């Protein structure tokens, strides 16, 4: 979305947005009678202050990276995948299901369960991709609808298929678990698991596929200009479907991390987890590039984790973090304002 800006601006816009977001957050705290320095100090110590909090923050960052990559991949190829939430849920349930249904050695079982999550997410995204490619149905509408189908289908599966009328499934066995006793001890028994490494690996794959392969070349080309791509002999419809499928696979993997790592089971969701929707913000803030998504996910992870501790230590309510995030997104979305300011600053400096 920052195509019209220079490289320098592309980096500065999100950075300035974050700074402005935090500033406005401070003002809101002041106006509401809290001490912003205390508030932010509590937020920081609650996310990075102790081993336990660091572990929890990293655990929180993991699904954000996947959700961010999923949205960013679709963005970069000209599609808007709002269905990350649903794809994440089906990935979650599918991975848990495979984790419970088989009894295999870990070296086969764990990859199989993770793969099941990716496949489920991919399949869920295949439907809107197919409808867009064949019938030109807008993917935004279909993916939103598919979110609800995913939510209720997953709840049904958890209650009646994977468990016997329970609200949660059984825990996945050790052979399909991402849990890491090592990291848990290291971080004073947080829920940190191996997922973060998979997330970082996924970011590398994202970068390589999109920037370095012929497939990525086609996907980006179709994303920018379908007509020219068709003229150049690319199969536009195939690329639309492929883009959604890969995007969905990232989302499904994010779900598998929750299912096999964070929780270790599936449960009935009363509402959406929100991770998929936050993925849109992560992708936007990260400028749809791999490193940007990692950094944005880290920021979101820190904010969300710190927000849990903030009320206890400084009395500032958790919702403040939502305000800060909203303001950051506002500034990123209104990037033209910042680009304009940057230009004025540059001129003034001359």
């Amino acid at each position, binding site marked *: 979305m920052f195509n019209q800006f220079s490289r320098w601006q592309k980096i500065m816009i999100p950075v300035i947005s974050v700074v402005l977001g935090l500033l406005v957050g401070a003002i809101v705290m002041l106006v509401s009678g809290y001490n912003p320095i205390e508030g932010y100090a509590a937020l920081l110590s609650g996310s990075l202050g102790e081993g336990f909090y660091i572990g929890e923050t990293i655990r929180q960052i993991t699904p954000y990276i996947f959700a961010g990559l999923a949205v960013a991949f679709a963005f970069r190829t000209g599609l808007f995948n709002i269905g990350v939430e649903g794809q994440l849920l089906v990935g979650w349930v599918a991975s848990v299901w495979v984790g419970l249904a088989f009894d295999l050695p870990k070296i086969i079982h764990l990859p199989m369960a993770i793969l099941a999550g990716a496949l489920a997410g991919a399949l869920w995204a295949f439907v809107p991709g197919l409808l867009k490619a064949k019938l030109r149905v807008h993917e935004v509408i279909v993916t939103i609808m598919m979110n609800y189908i995913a939510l209720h289908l997953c709840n049904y599966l958890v209650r009646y298929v994977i468990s016997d009328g329970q609200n949660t499934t059984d825990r996945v066995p050790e052979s399909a678990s991402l849990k890491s006793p090592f990291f848990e001890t290291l971080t004073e028994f947080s829920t940190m698991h191996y997922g973060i490494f998979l997330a970082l690996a996924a970011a590398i794959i994202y970068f390589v596929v999109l920037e370095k392969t012929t497939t990525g070349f086609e996907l980006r080309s179709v994303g*920018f200009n379908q007509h*020219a791509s068709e*003229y150049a002999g690319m199969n536009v419809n195939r690329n639309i479907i492929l883009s959604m499928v890969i995007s969905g696979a990232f989302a499904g993997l994010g779900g598998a991390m929750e299912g096999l790592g964070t929780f270790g089971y599936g449960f009935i969701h009363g509402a959406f987890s929100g991770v998929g929707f936050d993925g849109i913000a992560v992708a936007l803030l990260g400028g749809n590039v791999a490193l940007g998504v990692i950094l944005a996910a880290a920021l979101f992870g820190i904010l969300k984790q710190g927000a849990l501790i903030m009320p206890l230590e400084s009395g500032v309510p958790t919702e403040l973090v939502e305000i800060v995030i909203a303001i950051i997104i506002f500034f990123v979305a209104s990037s033209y304002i910042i680009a304009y300011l940057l230009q004025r600053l540059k001129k003034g400096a001359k």
Partner: protein
Amino acid sequence: MDYVIEMLDIRKEFPGIVANDNITLQLKKGEIHALLGENGAGKSTLMNVLFGLYQPEKGEIKVRGEKVNITSPNVANELGIGMVHQHFMLVDTFTVTENIVLGLEPKKGLNIDMKKAESEVQEISDRYGLKVDPNAKIADISVGMQQRVEILKTLYRGAEILIFDEPTAVLTPQEIKELIQIFRTLIAEGKSIILITHKLKEIIEVCDRVTVIRKGVGIDTLDVEGTTPTQLASLMVGRDVTFKTDKTEASPTHNVLEISQLNVKDSRGVNAVKNLDLSVRAGEIVGIAGVDGNGQSELIEAITGLRKVSSGVIKLNDQNLSSYKTRKITEAGVGHIPQDRHKHGLVLDFPIGDNMVLQTYYHKPYSKYSMLNNKEINKQAKKLIKEFDVRTPSETTPARALSGGNQQKAIIGREVDRDPDLLIAAQPTRGLDVGAIEFIHKRLIEQRDNGKAVLLVSFELEEIINVSDRIAVIYDGNIIEIVDPKTTTEQELGLLMAGSKNKAGETENV
């Protein structure tokens, strides 16, 4: 003081370049003054300075003898300067009147006095012979009409000096004639006009004086009377330009493209190409002459696989292409310079280097085991940039940042370099200046001389007559006549293109 506008020693810099280097332009009252220059010479920059969109680094502007400081388009409007942009700035869903009064609505209490607005618009329209219906919706009127609405907009705001940016680029020949008539009416009513253009014929036909700029530098201002197109062209380009394309006699050999009984439907499902027969031989350029909309686009799309063939055969070197996909056709040896370079020719947000391998990226050496080799891609890009004189800061510059002529050169480089047996060039010189046109014509002829077949589609008769070895006239989806460019005239072609043929229903053996 008989100058209404004086721009004296205007200098405008952008990071890295000097767009205007001490240019002087003086506009007399009641004259049509042409501003002539190649694409990217700095014409639009200069006019944007006058219109208050840019602030000059140096120089002064006088309006009716008084020094002014034009800081915004609003100031320009107040000074009576109006601009008709190349790309219209109209709200499609509004009526003509609504568009014209937008921002200056006559009020009646809190409401807009539409009755008054309409009658005012009607009055101005009548005075200048614009024949615009004040109640029509913009979306429903032709491009030529929309342009008149833009003219009306400036007149409604009291413009005395009108700037036209490439006004004829989007018009049909008939509309151009009408526009020239409108110019004369405007002058008769005491207005002054600056006409930005690179079309020499228009200047000779309608302008009084012309200021030539080249690469940001003012070259000369001269009276149009007594100049020739050749003289203006060489002033603009900086060297001698030949209009008559030099070429030897064609020596065609075997048939490369053979189309027989081809039928193609357009997007609405109506037959656009009807039982069409055509052949192009190796070593010749066949020009397709015709009025826009007689099946040319559909024909090209069918040959290149972008549109389904309903029936008939398209053979390339005895290989039937009619059911092939675009990629297979490209690989079989067809090159295609598309009519709309922004829509079909380039991925504008890609670097120009990536655009040069848009059809070949999956081949060695540009990729290996599906991994792109950017070094090789950039090497190829550099080679083509040099060979085809594409002016770009680097091969990683986005295609969007290049001027139209350079974009077109990049496309032509890409297509010619693949060395296709058949090169299809659709409107290859549209919107380009004489220098670029000359370059492109030379390249087409070079392909021919290398024993390739070239199919040229153009609405410019001059181009068709100059470049082609045979001319196929298309009318209503059919080739109704093949004529020899050496013996035909524009009049004859014009008649044929309008569908008049001596013996109706006769099919030409090609």
